[in-house]
C-alpha cells in the first residue's frame, strides 16, 4: 500500500482515539472539580488538566485564566487547538476522505456522520449543551467508527496501520490521563491511600468507563496500588498501558509477517512490552508515578517514530 495511505489510516485512528481522550479528560476534570481539593483549589485542577493534555500553553495564550467554561470550549470546540475534539474529528474525517478507497463505505459513513453531526452541534447554543452529553456523544461516535472497522475491514496491512494508530495513541493517552491524577495530587506519601485520594482515583476509573470492570477484576477496597495495577499492568484491562503496548506489538508482528520483513520497530515494541511485563506496582511507586509515566510516554513516542520511518515516510527500500 502507498506509504501516504498508510499514514492517513494511522492518523484516522490516532485522531479518533485522541478525540475520545479529550472528551474523557473533560469529564475527569468536571468531576474532580466538584470535589474539595487537596489545598490547591479549583483553579489548579483545571490547570493540571491542561498540562496533562499538552494544551496549557495554547490555552494560556488565548484565554489566560483557566475558567471551566473556557477550558471546555478550548478542549472541545476550538479549532485553534489542534487537539480539541472538533479538530480531531475534522482531521480524522479529512484523512478518511483522502483514503476513501482504502475504507469500506461503512467506515466512511461512520466518520462522515460524526463530522456532519459535529457541525450541527457547533451550530447549537452552548447553553443548550451539557458537558456529559457532549462526552457521551464523542464516545458513541468513536464506538461506531471502531465497530464499523472491526465488522467490515479486510484484515490486511491497512487494518494493521489503523490499529497501530489506535494502540499507540491509547498507550500515550492513558498515561497522560493518569498523569492528571499526578498533577491534581502531588504524590506525597501521606496522601497515597487516603480517603480523598481514592475518590479521585475512582473518578479516573469512571472517566475511563472502567469503574465496574475494576470491581470485577479486583473486588474489595479501592487502593491506589490496585488502580495503578489495573491501568498500567493488567492485561485484561483494555486501556492499560500493557494491553495497548501488546496490541501495538501484535499488529507490528502481523505487518512483519505480511511483508516478510521485521525491523527496529518490532524489536522496540517487544522491549517495551518485556519491561512492562516484569514491572511490579511497587517498582512504579518507588520510581514515582509521574517519573514512570513520563518515561513511558517518551518510549512510546520513540516507537511511533520508528513506525513512521519504517512504513509511513515512503523512505523504505
Amino acid at each position, binding site marked *: *500500500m*502507498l506509504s501516504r495511505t498508510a499514514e492517513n489510516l494511522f492518523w484516522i485512528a490516532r485522531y479518533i482515539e485522541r478525540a475520545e481522550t479529550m472528551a474523557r479528560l473533560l469529564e475527569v476534570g468536571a468531576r474532580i472539580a466538584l470535589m474539595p481539593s487537596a489545598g490547591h483549589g479549583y483553579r489548579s485542577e483545571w490547570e493540571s488538566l491542561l498540562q496533562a493534555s499538552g494544551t496549557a500553553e495554547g490555552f494560556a495564550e488565548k484565554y489566560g485564566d483557566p475558567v471551566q467554561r473556557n477550558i471546555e470550549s478550548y478542549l472541545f470546540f476550538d479549532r485553534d487547538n489542534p487537539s480539541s475534539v472538533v479538530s480531531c474529528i475534522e482531521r480524522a474525517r479529512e484523512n478518511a*476522505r483522502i483514503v476513501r*478507497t482504502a475504507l469500506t463505505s461503512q467506515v466512511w459513513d461512520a466518520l*462522515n456522520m460524526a463530522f456532519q453531526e459535529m457541525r450541527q452541534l457547533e451550530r447549537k447554543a452552548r447553553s443548550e449543551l451539557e458537558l456529559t452529553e457532549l462526552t457521551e456523544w464523542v464516545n458513541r461516535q468513536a464506538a461506531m467508527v471502531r465497530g464499523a472497522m472491526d465488522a467490515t475491514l479486510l484484515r490486511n496491512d491497512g487494518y494493521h496501520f489503523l490499529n497501530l494508530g489506535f494502540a499507540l495513541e491509547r498507550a500515550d493517552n492513558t498515561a497522560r490521563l493518569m498523569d492528571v491524577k499526578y498533577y491534581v495530587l502531588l504524590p506525597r506519601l501521606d496522601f497515597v491511600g487516603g480517603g480523598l485520594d481514592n475518590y479521585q482515583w475512582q473518578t479516573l476509573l469512571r472517566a475511563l468507563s472502567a469503574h465496574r470492570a475494576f470491581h470485577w477484576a479486583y473486588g474489595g477496597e479501592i487502593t491506589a496500588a490496585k488502580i495503578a495495577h489495573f491501568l498500567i499492568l493488567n492485561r485484561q484491562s483494555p486501556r492499560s498501558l500493557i494491553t495497548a503496548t501488546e496490541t501495538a506489538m501484535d499488529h507490528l508482528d502481523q505487518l512483519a509477517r505480511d511483508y516478510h520483513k521485521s525491523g527496529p520497530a518490532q524489536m522496540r515494541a517487544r522491549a517495551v512490552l518485556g519491561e512492562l511485563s516484569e514491572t511490579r506496582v511497587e517498582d512504579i511507586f518507588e520510581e514515582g508515578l509521574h517519573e514512570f509515566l513520563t518515561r513511558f510516554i517518551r518510549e512510546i513516542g520513540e516507537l511511533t517514530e520508528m513506525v513512521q520511518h519504517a512504513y509511513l515516510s515512503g523512505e*523504505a527500500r
Partner: protein
Amino acid sequence: MSNFFNEMYDGGKVREPYARLEGWTRAMPAELRQMKQAEAEALFRRIGITFAVYGEGGDPDRLIPFDMFPRVFTQFEWRKLERGIKQRARALNAFLLDVYGRGEIVRAGKIPARLVYQNEAFERAVTGFVPPRGIYSHIVGIDLVRTGPDEFFVLEDNCRTPSGVSYMLENREIMMRMFPALFRESRIEPVDGYADALRRTLASVAPAKCDRDPTIAILTPGHFNSAYYEHSFLADLMGVELVEGADLFVEGGFVWMRTTEGPKKLDVIYRRIDDSFLDPLCFRPDSMLGVPGLMDVYRSGGVTITSAPGAGVADDKAIYTFVPEMIRFYLGEEPLLQNVPTWQCGKADDKKYVLEHLPELVVKEVHGSGGYGMLVGPKATKDQIEHFRLKIEEDPGNYIAQPTLALSTTPTFVEEGIAPRHVDLRPYCLVGENIELVPGGLTRVALTDGSLVVNSSQGGGVKDTWVLAE
C-alpha cells in the same frame, strides 16, 4: 419558450422516449417529490460527492444540485450519436499523432501552422514521440447540445482530462436506489461498465517496457482539488492506486510508487493534473504536484501518461473549427456530428461581424473553461457587452464567437413543480485498443429559468441520462 425544442413534449404530445415518465410524474404528489429530493441530497452528502467551486471560497462540501427528472434517449437516437462521437474521437487522435509527427494536415494547408505550432497547448517536449498505439487522448469528453429532434451540435471537445464521469455513475446509482420500479418498467442501458472499460483502455496502452500485467494509478493534484472525489471514486472502482506527485519518484528509467513495502513500479498513469504540472524539470519548475524526471521516463517508454502530454492542442477552441476538416482529411468520411458555426475574432472579417452582432452571440475565450470569461449576448447587460467589446479589441485572437443556440429543454423539477430547463450532454468516449462508449453521459441542466449556462460552477445541476434498450 416555444422556440426551443422540448425533448419531452412536442406540439402538446409526449415524445416516445418519455412516454413512461409521464405517468411517473403524474403519480408523484408534491410531498413525495420533496421527500425523495431530500433523500437524494442526503445520499449524495453521505457518499461525499461534493464539488468545491474554484475561486468562490465558501462551503467546500457544496453539492451539485441533482435533478431527479431523467433525460432520455432512444436506442436509435443514441446509435447515431455514438457513431458521430467515435468518429470524432478517432479524428482527434489522428490529428494529434500527425501534428507531433510529420504535420501532414498543416502541409496540406488544411489548418494554419500558426494555430497548431504556436498554440499554448502544443508541447514541444513530445514532438517526434509516438505514444503506445499512437493514442494521445484516451478519454474524450464531447460536449453536445441539441436544437431539434435530429439536430445535434458539438459545442466543444475535451481531449485532456474531462471530468464529471463520477456524476454519470452516481446519478444512476441514486436513481436506481430511489426509484427501482422505474427501472423495472423501462429497459435502460446500464452505465456501470464504465470503470471496467476505462481500466481495459488504460491497460491496453501499457508502455513497451512493461512485460507483465501493468500497474495503473490515477495521479491527482490532491484532496484540495475540486474533482478529488471523482479521482478517488474512479481509483476505487478500477481497483488502482490513487497517487499524488509526492508518492512517486523516478529511478533507473522507471517511475516508482512509495509504498509500505518499498518501491513499486508504475506502468500507466491516468493523470488528472495539467501538462504544465507533470514534471518540474520539463515544465513548470515551481510545480509541487508533479514528479521530477517523469517526462524522461515517458519519452523513453518506461511509463505511459494518459492523456498524453500535448493532447490539449486538439481541444482548443480555435482548433475546434477545423475538426470537420480533420474528419475528412484523416478518415475520408463526412462528419456525422455538426460543429456550431464559429467566428474567429483573430480574423479581421470575423471580428468585424462579431463586434457588429455582439447582442446575439455567445463569446468565449479560446482557452477558457467552466463557463468563466464568457459572454451570452442575449442575456447580457449593455455594460457587459461594451466590456467584451473592449476585451476583443485588445486581444482578438483570444476570442471566438458562436450564434446563441436554441438549446433543447427537458422537464425539470423546480420549486413550482415541473418546468422546462435547458440541457447539454457530455458522453465519455474511451480510446485504447478499442474505441468504447458507455450508453449514457452526463446531462447538465441550467436550473435558472431561461438560463443557457449549464456549468456547475455557474449554478447548473445534473441529471441521470438514460438510453433506452430496444
